Every structure is written in structure tokens, then in C-alpha cells.
């Protein structure tokens, strides 16, 4: 039997490549100086969905909540084998914490017919690992977090191995279910050349509009709209229009979105200053080392 999967993905700044320029003088992050990437463990979630599809069939829908630039990871998902991609974008999503984000995502996921929802274990910009479990609660489905291996899928039940810190656990649940997937689960496949050819021109409506605006700087708003609509319907006919949803479309109650819907607020951000304590330089010779060791013995730090 076939299984329908929804994969939640996020575009994140590449925190591994933070350089001096990526931090502003006030210690805040200069996001524009960081390359934006597909959150690594979301690729593992997508790969697991693809493996399920390869074996059992079914449809894979990827959703990202983000800025228009997140169209890039949606295309990447199509290149790797996703069937449908959805950009959930709305200015009213801004400043959402994990609780508000999970609420907004739950409104979107509820519009789709699914058996399995897959998320990456955590995103590298926040490292919270909270959105998956919060989304599962909002959807009213059980969660299997930290999935390392899918053991079995049959007859609407799933068996998976999950990491429990010091060891592992094998659990079974009835579908529908939400999984959060770790980097250990698999090796994400690369984009397929054929699919890249097919989808390289796939665009979201907002990308279409932005491009037309850029090319027709002088044109009136209404004309741009018309041009964009025309281009979108052309793309749609070719199956190259990436769906774009907003909060109104998914029926989200604004009380629970954005800043209003977010109980956590930032009080302060500090850049990490390396504490320079009292430092003693020790000569790397017998004398220096022997003196240091005797000092440590006297201070009762070594026995």
C-alpha cells in the first residue's frame, strides 16, 4: 500500500561558516552575510520520505514556512524527487517562535491528506528540536523523535528505531504519525539530472512577480500584476508553478501567529566574548613544565 508523506523543511543560514563579517558590531547576526542552505537534517527527513515512496509508492509534499528566497530549497526538493512543493509565506509569520511556527505549520499540514509527517530533528540556526513535537501535539498525532532507522511499515503501522541518548529504542505506532529524523538515519541522495532539467524553471508566484518587477522597473503596479498572472498560468500549465500559501489561505487564527502568538521574546543578545582570564605562559622546556606541575601540586589541583 502507498503512503502519503509531508516533509517540513527550512532554509537556514549556514552557521558552520560564520565569519567575522557575519556578526554585526552589536553582536546580532548579519543574516545577509551568511549563505542560506537547506537545513541538513531536513534533507535526512526528505530522504526517508523518498525511500518510503520508492518502496511503497505514495505522494511526497514538502512545505516550508519562510521568506520568498526559500523557493530555492523547494526546487532542490523537486530535483531530489518530491512530488509537490508549497511555500508558506506571509509577513504576519515574522517573529514567530517555535510555538507559533508549529501552529502555522499545523494549519498547512491539515489541508493535506497524509499518513506520515517528517521533520528534521532540529534546525542549525536555533537547535531547539521543538517544532516537530509541538506540531505533533497540534495535529493530535503521536511523535517518534530522533529516528535513526525505519524498520518496518505495513498495514498502517510503523516501526522505527530511535536514539534515546545512551542507547536506542524500537517503537511501533499506528499511522498517522510524526517523525523527527536524525543525520544518522541515511545519506541524502543528490539531485537527479532528469528532474533538474524538468524543474529548473519551477517558480513560486512571488519569484515570478519579483522578476517581472525587476525587468519592468517603470511599469505600473497593475500591469506588473497582469504580467505576473499570465506568466504564472503559463507555468501552471507546464506543472512548474510552485504553490504559495498565506495565513489566510490556511485558515490560521492570527492570535496564534507571529509576535502575538509567540510567548518567548528576546531580552538580550550578546556575542560570545572569550573570557581572557589570568594567563601564565609556560616555556615548553623541562624547567617550565616541571615548575608548572609543581605549582599545580601545591595548589592541590593534581595529587
Amino acid at each position, binding site marked *: 500500500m502507498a503512503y502519503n508523506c509531508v516533509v517540513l523543511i527550512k532554509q537556514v543560514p549556514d*552557521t558552520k561558516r*560564520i565569519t567575522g563579517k*557575519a*556578526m554585526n558590531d552589536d*553582536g546580532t*547576526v548579519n543574516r545577509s552575510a551568511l549563505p542560506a542552505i537547506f537545513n541538513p537534517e531536513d534533507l535526512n527527513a526528505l530522504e526517508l520520505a523518498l525511500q518510503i515512496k520508492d518502496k511503497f509508492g505514495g505522494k511526497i509534499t514538502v512545505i516550508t514556512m519562510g521568506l520568498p528566497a526559500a523557493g530555492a530549497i523547494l526546487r532542490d526538493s523537486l530535483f531530489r524527487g518530491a512530488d509537490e512543493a508549497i511555500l508558506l509565506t506571509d509577513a504576519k509569520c515574522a517573529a514567530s*517562535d517555535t*510555538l507559533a511556527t*508549529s501552529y502555522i505549520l499545523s494549519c498547512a499540514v491539515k489541508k493535506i491528506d497524509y499518513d506520515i509527517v517528517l521533520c528534521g530533528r532540529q534546525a*542549525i*540556526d536555533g537547535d*531547539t528540536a*521543538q*517544532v516537530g*513535537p*509541538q*506540531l*505533533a*501535539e497540534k495535529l493530535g498525532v503521536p*511523535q517518534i*523523535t530522533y529516528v535513526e532507522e525505519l524498520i518496518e511499515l505495513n498495514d498502517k503501522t510503523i*516501526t522505527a528505531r530511535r*536514539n*534515546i*541518548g545512551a*542507547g*536506542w*529504542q*524500537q*517503537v*511501533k*505506532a*499506528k499511522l498517522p504519525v510524526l517523525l523527527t529524523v536524525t543525520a544518522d538515519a541515511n545519506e541524502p541522495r543528490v539531485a537527479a539530472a532528469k528532474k533538474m532539467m524538468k524543474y529548473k524553471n519551477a517558480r513560486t508566484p512571488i519569484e515570478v512577480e519579483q522578476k517581472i518587477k525587476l525587468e519592468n522597473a517603470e511599469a505600473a503596479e497593475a500591469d506588473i500584476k497582469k504580467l505576473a498572472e499570465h506568466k504564472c498560468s503559463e507555468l501552471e500549465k507546464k506543472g512548474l508553478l510552485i504553490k504559495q500559501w498565506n495565513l489566510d489561505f490556511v485558515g490560521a487564527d492570527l492570535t*496564534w501567529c507571529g509576535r502575538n502568538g*509567540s*510567548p*518567548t*521574546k*528576546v*531580552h*538580550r*543578545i*550578546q*556575542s*560570545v566574548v*572569550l573570557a*581572557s*582570564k*589570568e*594567563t601564565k*605562559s*609556560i616555556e*615548553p622546556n623541562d624547567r617550565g*613544565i*616541571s615548575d*608548572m*606541575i609543581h605549582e*599545580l601540586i601545591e595548589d592541590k*589541583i*593534581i595529587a
Partner: protein
Amino acid sequence: MIDVNRQGEVWVFAEQHNGHLEDTPIELMSRARRLADTLGVKLAAAVLGNGARDIAAKLIHYGADKVYLAEHPLLVAYQTNSYAKVIFDLIHKHKPQIVLYGATAAGRDLAPRVASAAKAGLTADCTDLQIGDHKTTDGDTHKNLLFQIRPAFGGNIIATIINYDRWPQMATVREGVMPMPEPDVGRKGEIIQEKVQISQQDLPLEILEEHKRPKKVNLKAARIIVAGGAGVGSKDNFKLVWDLANCLGAAPAATRAAVDLGFIDSDHQVGQTGTTVRPSLYIAVGISGAIQHQAGMSGSQKIIAINNDPGAPIFQIAHYKILGDLNVVVPKMIKTLREKSIKEEKAEA
């Protein structure tokens, strides 16, 4: 949703498995005690399980004024839904102002589920907790909030998170970042047996098999740690780290780079994605001192850094800076320590 109340208690979720209380909630007790004292409210622990009264008594020794004990045969093993439901019911009934969880695998699985049900804020993986005031942009001041302090952006910034309009204030706290308190066996407190209402429906998972793998090394308990980095160069050369550790009765540790290079098992990794340690002495051998590594060891009392690059960031937090080749320095240290112990043996004889 729970309204803001200033008299609410401070709670710690006391994670236990098979009658064994985890370390992280114990570590949390000392800081939670301080938070409760600052606020002038009681400190309570919540224990879920079946036959967990011994643990409740222990928690009082570690500083709890009260322990809410929720016992039920269906709570014998941890499951997200059943535990989340019981914790949520307890929160709803008693309205604590702060609820803290260890950022263990179970804690990070449970807390968000509870937060979502309670529509409350939650900050993941805190490394510090304080009480302080916050002024909003409108000029309102909120007094005595929980400052939830955590690294963000891959450890490049430290963020202080608060929540003032919805209770409780909840956070998970990293393992090992707070010192273990000493138990006071004379301490008295109250154990409150709670009624638990759950059924088989609250256990949607079937746990088929479980394998606990004991860690190969207990870095958190080590008084002295000798850690090696990529600079050590090879698995064979890592013997230097093991030998120095042996001479000192120390635990051998490593950076992620050294683990990734296969020099040593990942159980030995110190840092943001490894273990957080606070030994009396930390000897960093061929370690550059990346922020993610420092996140796990900057709380060490004394740090010796051995590195041949004068610009290595590790030197900025080291107490003893040895600029030189580790292949020269470490053997000299081993020699000095061996000579010393030979001398002592002779003196005893």
C-alpha cells in the same frame, strides 16, 4: 492557557527511568533552589512513574520543599503522550510559574509537547538561568522574570529569552552545565501523592525493544581531563593523550574533529554536541578552541593549553599557555609526572 501568577512555585521535572533518577534534574535542583529563594516561593519536583517514592525522598534531600508524586502502572516506562498529559494536568492544577526540564533525549521530547498543549513558551538547551527584570519597547517593566540563557547560531551568540505574558515559563537545561548539589539527608519536605488519570489510549506507542548503552567514559565525574584535538595527528599518536591521562588519573577526552578523524570514540567528545564538563583541570592538547568546543569546557577551574599556534583561541581562556609542539611538551609532562611518582614511592619505602 495559564495566567501570570507571581506566587507560583518553581518546578523541576525529575526524570527517572526504572527507579534511577537522572543526573540532570539533580543538577537542576541547586539552581532551581536559588531561583525559588530569589522569588520567595517553594521549590517543587514532579516525579512520574510507578513506585517512585524513594526518588521523591531523595529530591527533598537535594533541595525540594515539595514533591508531587504521580504514580500509575501505565507510567512505568516513559512515553511522550502519557507523560505530557500527566505533567500538563499537574501544571494546570498547581499553576507553577517556572517549570524546568533536563535537556536529555526524554526531556527534549516531552517539554515541547507539554508547551504546545499549555500554549506556553519554552526555551531549549539553556546553559544558565537567572531572575531579572525586562523593560518592553513600550516602556512597561516586567519584574522577576526567568532569564533563559542559551547559545544560539551554532554557539556564536548568547541569547537571553524571556516570556512575560503567558505562564508557566519553561526551559530545558543542558546536561552537565550546573554543578551537582550535595544531598542533605536531614532535609524535610512534603510528598504529595497525585491522582493520575490516564488510560491505554494515552500510550500510542508500543516499546518493542530498548538497549541502554553505558557510556565508555564518565567525563562529567572526572576531576582531571586530558583532551586531544586534530593537532594530535593520528590515532597512534593519540596514545600520548591516553598516557598523560593515565599518569594523572584523568579521563581522556577529545574534540569533534579528533572523533571524526577516528582517533577516539565519540563518547569522549567534549563540547556543544558532546559532553559538558567542569573538571578541576582540563588539559587541551592540539586543540584550537572552537566556540563549540569551548561551550563544553570553559567552566573548567584550570585550563592548560598546548598548541604551536600563538593565535589559537584556546589560549584566550587558558590559565597555563604552553606555546610549543605537543610531541615535545606532552612527553616532558609524562616524564616529570613519572619521576615524581617514583620519588614518592621511594620516599614511602
